[in-house]
């Protein structure tokens, strides 16, 4: 059975994939369906959903189109989630490979730094970082990656420790390759699958962290974010609950979708590896 077929046979994986595809579609078509600024005032304030079909999900306290905000918010969530996860995985893989391959003092130093980062709750770290540097998209991505790279670093190191003892590594040494070249061209690619298996968890966590930061008013105020929408809606929770519920549901579905699809991919590749 091909991995793709195996993937397609798992119902959770399919559900996850469908949600993800929908999310990407929303993010990619946001500017197409809702050109211009999604934060522009489009109608009367606090219009409930399904009343006016030009504003199908209603409007918020200033009269902004909730559907437009939802589409553009999907973009922010995905950008932040993917960028933060990519940064965390890259940093983690590099640090882990260096530590595992070099061993000795370098290993000690790098792993103690990793420990230090790991002992601070990652959300607190992000919170502190953003409130010191000031909220903007790049800062939020950095802040989230700052707390997320330790997991990949530990996994990468563990993998590298076993891979570096293999024969092909010894062979590379014998033919005189530079140690850094061996580490990053021979060892890292082989350690990568295990590290990438973490990606779904990290993306999901990054999206949630971004939402939490925005909810606390530490997101980029010039972009629509789902967390920001929930925070805005909180003041009118009793009179217009849809303002918090709609982005909340979108957030739950997204995190669920990323996680299910990620699990599906990991499982199918894991089976393939064990078969080979």
């Amino acid at each position, binding site marked *: 059975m091909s991995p793709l077929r195996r993937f397609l046979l798992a119902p959770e994986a399919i559900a996850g994939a469908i949600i993800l595809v929908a999310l990407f579609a929303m993010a990619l078509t946001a500017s197409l369906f809702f050109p211009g*600024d999604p*934060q*522009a*005032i489009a109608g009367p*304030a*606090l219009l409930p959903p399904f009343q006016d079909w030009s504003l199908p999900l209603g409007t918020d*306290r*200033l*009269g902004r189109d909730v559907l437009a905000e939802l589409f553009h918010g999907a973009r922010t969530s995905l950008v932040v989630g993917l960028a933060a996860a990519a940064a965390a995985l890259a940093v983690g893989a590099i640090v882990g490979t260096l530590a595992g391959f070099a061993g000795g003092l370098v290993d000690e130093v790098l792993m103690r730094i990793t420990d230090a980062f790991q002992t601070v709750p990652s959300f607190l770290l992000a919170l502190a970082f953003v*409130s010191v540097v*000031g*909220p903007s998209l790049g800062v939020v991505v950095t802040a989230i990656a700052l707390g997320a790279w330790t997991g990949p670093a530990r996994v990468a190191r563990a993998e590298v420790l076993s891979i570096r003892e293999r024969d092909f590594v010894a062979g590379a040494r014998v033919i005189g390759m530079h140690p850094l070249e061996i580490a990053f061209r021979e060892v890292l690619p082989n350690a990568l699958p295990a590290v990438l298996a973490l990606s779904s968890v990290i993306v999901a966590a990054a999206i949630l962290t971004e939402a939490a930061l925005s909810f606390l*008013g*530490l997101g980029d*105020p*010039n972009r629509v974010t789902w967390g920001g929408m929930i925070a805005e809606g*909180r*003041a*009118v*929770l*009793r*009179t*217009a609950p849809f303002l918090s519920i709609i982005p909340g549901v979108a957030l739950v579905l997204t995190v669920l979708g990323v996680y299910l699809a990620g699990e599906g991919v990991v499982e199918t590749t894991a089976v393939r590896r064990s078969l080979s």
Partner: protein
Amino acid sequence: MSNVTISRRTVLAGSALLLASTALPTIGWAQTPKKGGRLVVAADSEPRNLNPAIVASNGVFFISSKIVETLAEASFDGKDGLDPRLATSWEGAADGLSVTFKLREGVKWHDGKPFTSADVAFSALQIWKPLQNLGRTVFKDLEAVDTPDELTAVFKFAKPTPFQLIRNALPALSSVVPKHIYETGKIDENPANNAPVGTGPFKFVEHKSGEYYRLEKNADYWVKNQPYLDEIIYQVLPDRTSAASALEAEEIQLAAFSAVPLADLDRISKVPGLKVVTKGYEGLTYQLVVEINHRRRELADLKVRQAIVHAIDKDFVVKTVFLGYAATATGPVPKNDPQFYTADVPTYAFDVAKANALLDEAGYNKGDDGKRFSLKLLPAPYFNETKQFGDYLRQALAAIGIDAQLVNNDSAAHIKAVYTDHAFDLAVGPPVFRGDPAISTTILVQSGIPDGVPFSNQGGYKNDELDALIAKASETLDPAARTELYREFQRQVATDLPLINVAEWSFISVIKDTVANVANNPRWAVSNWADTWLET
């Protein structure tokens, strides 16, 4: 003068003053107050310093005004808008160099010691003038306080100081604290700053951090048979959404200072047993102001500032951001001020086409992307409404081709960015009008204020004519001439636009209908509540 006062009062949106002055006597003789009971009130913050003589702010007054009294309190129908408290009369000398206060007889501090003129002299010279946030300006020329006898205090000023200003400052700035407690040790480290001792109708009992403040009836209060309540509990509820549910669950009986979000008021006004009260805050008007950094070349151009005013739909702001619980502003003095307000100022209608034309005229043409230039916009984080107005202003500016980038900060970072580092182009601020423009309003446009003074002109604006006008008003003794100078001040500010006044608002209380005698003065939430009682 009194004729003017009455005509100004009718201007007030909702005619709150008139309603109050006609309704209150009715309540007075229709029902006899019942004694006893406990009033539970929502408190949204726990001030670090509860001494109102040092920190003259509404958050502190809300609790401490029941314990520590002022020389006079604001009043709807008293002479000059004042009701006597610790002082029974006050008179200014014709040369503006002295003010004589006659003090109330038989008043005792909560620890039993008698209240005398020495306490007033000590509070004024040792606390109000050197330490108090507002007193530093108003009492800057106070040289000495003579105490010819125990019940007379004569304030001596080095330079002529308008009596009208001192009078207007009494309700907020004249909290009297006991000399015998504060004279030893450092004033700002005195334990009484956290457990105040005063002459008021209630005594401070305890504060459990994060839980409550408890005040207890002062049986020796100088008004016979008052206070009516046995106890006031301030339940600490920092979350704005929890006050409404606490009211509905009957855990609290009063949520003042708009602790219930505006959007919830419509719903909560229909809950049986609860009433929404908009009165009782007339003396605490907040102004929604766009602060402008005149160091920016574009913003130093009057045409650009005019364009920005024309781009703001003030009615939309009042209707949508404040849900109608506000009034549009015309200038730096709010419409509900009975003494100084004038409507005779240049006004700017909401007109996007005109705003665009003005910007074209000023030479800032739209680029290919429809943008003329970019600005940094810092909305103050203190109120939901200031933040929301920031969101609105960004959109309003986008409509005229100005790209505003929002920068959100917490309170401390906002104050530093705007008032110390000047790292803003536009800022949204909520200054307070305190009954006289000289207390905290002229400072918003006056030049020469050192960096770092919060809620002052930190936008680099300098207008010699306006500075001269402010200086002249500060030493003009005749109330009529002084009032006229402040009307001219309003005209000049509205003409040259050192800042933009968008709206003015006050707070809303949600109160259980068994609480009687509420909102009966213009600073009710921060007054002493001696006459408040509970129906059972």
